[in-house]
């Protein structure tokens, strides 16, 4: 094992919660509202099924290879050369998806707050901070997640509570006007986010209480699902059919907050806290790439790779899309299939393969 750090199953849940949510909370309400309309609150529920399946696959695969990550056991399952090739594709995939996340973050900051700051500066400073985190290993990633998640969660609850006077629950009626189809269609894009749970294959080998891994993974999926449902509901209660036209409904919602007619326009503050969540998200992906690359190259230490890979990440995030519109288009059209195939389908095939293999080995043995 490349990282000697140890984390607990609860810490894994702490890491995974913002890892899914940080960008989902920004983009999912608008994207689901486009296809699901009034039933957008149902979409995350359908999408979370992917999350449960992915956690199941990841923990099952971990049962077969307790000390190995995705990059390592794929070599064992499909043979050295194909496995190496698969690992390489996974690394490229993770580089790409992480770069997309960094770009989402950069576009959001530059588009909403620091209009005159070059996007590369915004992204590079974030990657630098994350590099510092990743260098500390999985233990530090776990601890920082435990520091920031309560703050982010507290903020989220505050926003929802403070918005209550402006919410119009009638917006969601009638429920299921056009049957289940719109909500199912709307769940397609969020599945991409939920399939990100495959990242726990990088955390499971470092876990002290691995038997609780499945339980806490499922809890993480459930809480993420619940949070997105609440977010979707809150933004639809607030904006109604307008939700789909906004890019970041939650940030617009934050503008509605007014405490005692004194504290107003708190969206910059909300952004600052939200950055804490994004930080955990990027760190987790970043860590997966760095640890995965070290495992793929069979290095003894992953730390020297951190900064170079960070540099590559910033580069790719600049190249990945010409502007935000293209990025959102990519996210809402191609990405579900792209993300899903790498994060859920291929691992599922790997699991199937190893199950068949071990069964045939058993039958041969008896």
């Amino acid at each position: 094992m490349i990282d000697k750090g140890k984390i607990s199953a609860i810490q894994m849940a702490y890491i995974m919660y913002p890892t899914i949510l940080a960008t989902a909370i920004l983009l999912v309400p608008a994207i689901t509202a486009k296809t699901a309309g009034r039933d957008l609150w149902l979409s995350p529920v359908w999408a979370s099924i992917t999350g449960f399946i992915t956690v199941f696959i990841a923990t099952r695969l971990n049962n077969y290879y307790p000390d190995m990550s995705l990059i390592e056991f794929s070599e064992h399952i499909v043979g050295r050369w194909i496995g190496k090739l698969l690992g390489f594709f996974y690394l490229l995939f993770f580089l790409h998806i992480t770069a997309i996340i960094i770009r989402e973050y950069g576009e959001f900051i530059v588009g909403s707050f620091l209009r005159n700051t070059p996007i590369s500066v915004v992204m590079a400073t974030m990657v630098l901070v994350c590099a510092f985190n990743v260098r500390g290993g999985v233990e530090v990633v776990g601890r920082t997640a435990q520091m920031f998640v309560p703050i982010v969660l507290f903020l989220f609850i505050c926003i929802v509570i403070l918005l209550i006077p402006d919410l119009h629950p009638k917006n969601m009626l009638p429920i299921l006007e056009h049957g289940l189809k719109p909500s199912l269609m709307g769940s397609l894009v969020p599945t991409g986010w939920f399939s990100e749970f495959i990242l726990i294959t990088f955390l499971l080998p470092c876990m002290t209480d691995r038997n609780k891994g499945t339980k806490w993974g499922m809890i993480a999926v459930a809480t993420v699902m619940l949070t997105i449902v609440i977010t979707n509901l809150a933004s639809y209660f607030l904006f109604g059919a307008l939700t789909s036209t906004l890019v970041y409904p939650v940030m617009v919602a934050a503008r509605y907050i007014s405490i005692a007619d004194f504290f107003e326009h708190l969206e910059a503050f909300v952004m600052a806290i939200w950055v804490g969540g994004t930080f955990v998200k990027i760190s987790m992906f970043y860590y997966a790439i760095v640890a995965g690359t070290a495992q793929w190259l069979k290095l003894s230490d992953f730390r020297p790779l951190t900064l170079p890979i960070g540099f590559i990440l910033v580069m790719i995030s600049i190249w990945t899309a010409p502007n935000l519109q293209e990025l959102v288009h990519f996210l809402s059209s191609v990405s579900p299939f792209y993300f899903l195939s790498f994060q859920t389908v291929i691992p599922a095939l790997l699991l199937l393969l190893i199950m068949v293999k071990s069964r045939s080995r058993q039958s041969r043995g008896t």
Partner: protein
Amino acid sequence: MKRLLQSGFRHPSASDEAPDSLHIQQVPLSAVLADNLQRMHTIYTNCPDVVFRSLYIDRSIQATLIYIEGLSNNDAIDKSVIAPLAQITIQPAEAIHTVIEQQLTVPKITELHSIAECIDQLSSGCPVLLFDHNAVGLSFNLAKWEKRGVEEPTAEAVVRGPREGFTESLGVNTSLLRRKLRTPQLKMMPLKVGRFTQTELVVAFIDEIAEQALIDEVLRRLERIDIDGVLESAYIEELIEDAPHSLFPQIMNTERPDVAVANLLEGRVVILVDGTPFALIAPVTFYSLLQSAEDYYQRYTFSSTIRWLRYAALVISLLLPSLYVATLTYHQEMIPTSLFFSIAKSREEIPFPVVIEALIMEITFEALREAGVRLPKQIGAAVSIVGALVIGQAAVSAGIVSAPMVMVVAITGISSFMIPRYSAGIAIRMLRFPIIMLAGVLGLLGIMLAVIFTVVHLCTIRSFGVPYMSPMGPMKARDMKDVLMRAPLWMLNTRPHLTGDGNKYRQAPGQKPDSNRGSE
């Protein structure tokens, strides 16, 4: 760069620079008094404070009493050594040193067999007696030197709580610990550090509460130290801490015996250093640096509130100036309109951007604080008057800085003094400056990045194996009762995780007082 520095300052090995007197020190005592005396004279050339007093035992045996002026109790030497020695009669069959040991009324007599031992005893203030026809010397425990009495510690004041503090004398300090902890399980391991100062250290811990691995690690790190002198426990702290480049102290210091004992009871190790009233406590966590002794001496509701006030003060002292800079520079919409107008009005004539203004004021404030600490007390008052008048009044009316900025700096300053540990406060104050600059460049995002950076750093470092941010990250629900609040004493049943695991429960359960108890 680091390698260059190390090679540049590498010391020649110890044997290269050992003086001649070191070779003499290895020699065992000779049976001829003149030989021993000659050696001692060579070692103590140009040391007029070393007294060689010749005398005769039983009118025939020549002897010399050696002591260092001012380190020993002269009256006691006179009464219980010199006078009785003159009257001793020795039977030919008896060994002189045993007779002396039996006859003298000195509490502790040690036999010496080498010159090195003699020097050791002399340096610690014990008179040494050497006599003819015998290769054994004797030392009498009559050390006594001028020392400060036990006084109230100035750096850690309390309203309610013991008023005694450690002193510069190691013996007094160990006795203060022993008086509070009367169990024989309080162990104290003596050590000597410093080639020239030969400073005595004591590593104190409670057997069965402190983990053996921790004690071994502390001793291992202490034994590694090889420097010429230790003048303050800070020397030791700097040589044994985990992350030497960190801004944050990973070892706590205290002047209060009650704090030391409380930490001993939580399974930590206390290092007492001779010559300084500051004892070291290891390992510590970030949160223990935000706790004061008095938290446990006041009602728990009040203490919990004060703790929260302190956490707020920590955030304010770290972030308030940079939040002010960020909101005024980038996020004006966040400021309520009426407040914004009044700030804008006061900033109308100010020639500087907010960042520069904030930096000027913060640096001035730090300079005033430092000047106030170093100056003699009489002038210190003058500094504060000049500071208050020049900064607070004149600068505002001259239109150099705005009044709200003065307020921000003042609130920040007061908040930073709310952090009970001076060393932790320094770290926060130093971090403030880069954060102000980042706020000026990236606004709230810059502040958040700086905060994340700090938190990552705090999550990375450990103090003697204990994660610095525990029990927050990694989270330990059991220890939260002493972090998020100060739980009432009858709920603090368990020792903190990671230091007190060997002996988990510190008191019997169910001690919650109850008005019905008497009638049962």
